[in-house]
């Protein structure tokens, strides 16, 4: 049901964006930011439900919680970075969008290192 509301709201926002575009560029971009943030918040409850299921499964399979929280962090960073980068790209500032994605990649790389180390250790242990 929500998808109808979201599509309707998106079309209305696009029309307002076009109205504001040729006169007041900055408010048009603010409108885009407001819409994307709003949809993000609306979808966050569903994402939370999915993450809750993953957490329960991990608890049952007694996977180490540290890895799961790292994966959740990486997903969160990816979402937010993509959110920001796309808005900057929409405002024709490609360089800023590129830098946001660059920073996100570095942060995700830093977060992923412990998991890589753990995997390599288990592999080394497997080899007799």
């Amino acid at each position, binding site marked *: 049901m929500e998808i109808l*509301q979201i599509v309707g*709201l998106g079309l*209305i*926002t696009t029309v*307002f964006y076009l*109205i*504001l575009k040729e*006169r*007041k560029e*900055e*408010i*048009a971009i*603010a*409108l885009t*930011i*407001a*819409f994307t*943030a*709003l949809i*993000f*918040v609306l979808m*966050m409850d569903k*994402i*939370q439900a999915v*993450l809750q299921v993953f957490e329960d499964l991990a608890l049952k399979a007694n996977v180490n919680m540290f890895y799961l*929280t790292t994966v*959740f*962090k990486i*997903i*969160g*960073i990816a*979402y*937010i970075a993509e959110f920001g980068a796309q808005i900057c790209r929409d405002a024709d500032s490609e360089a800023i969008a590129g830098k946001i994605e660059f920073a996100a990649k570095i942060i995700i790389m830093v977060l992923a290192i412990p998991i890589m180390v753990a995997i390599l250790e288990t592999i080394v242990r497997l080899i007799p």
Partner: protein
Amino acid sequence: MDISIIFKIAGIGILTAVLHSILKQFGKEEQAHLATLAGVTIVLFMVIQLLSGLFDYVRSVFSLY
């Protein structure tokens, strides 16, 4: 966190645009720019509030402390 914030921003934006062009007709160039500045700051204030709410929510969901 409801849908009305989009219509508020759109309304303020259109009002600012119209106000700007009206004031320009009256020849009051400075007031026109001031009115635009006021409109933009109000809109930015609302957007920043929305963003802070979003970032707090994301921080709590993805435990991104």
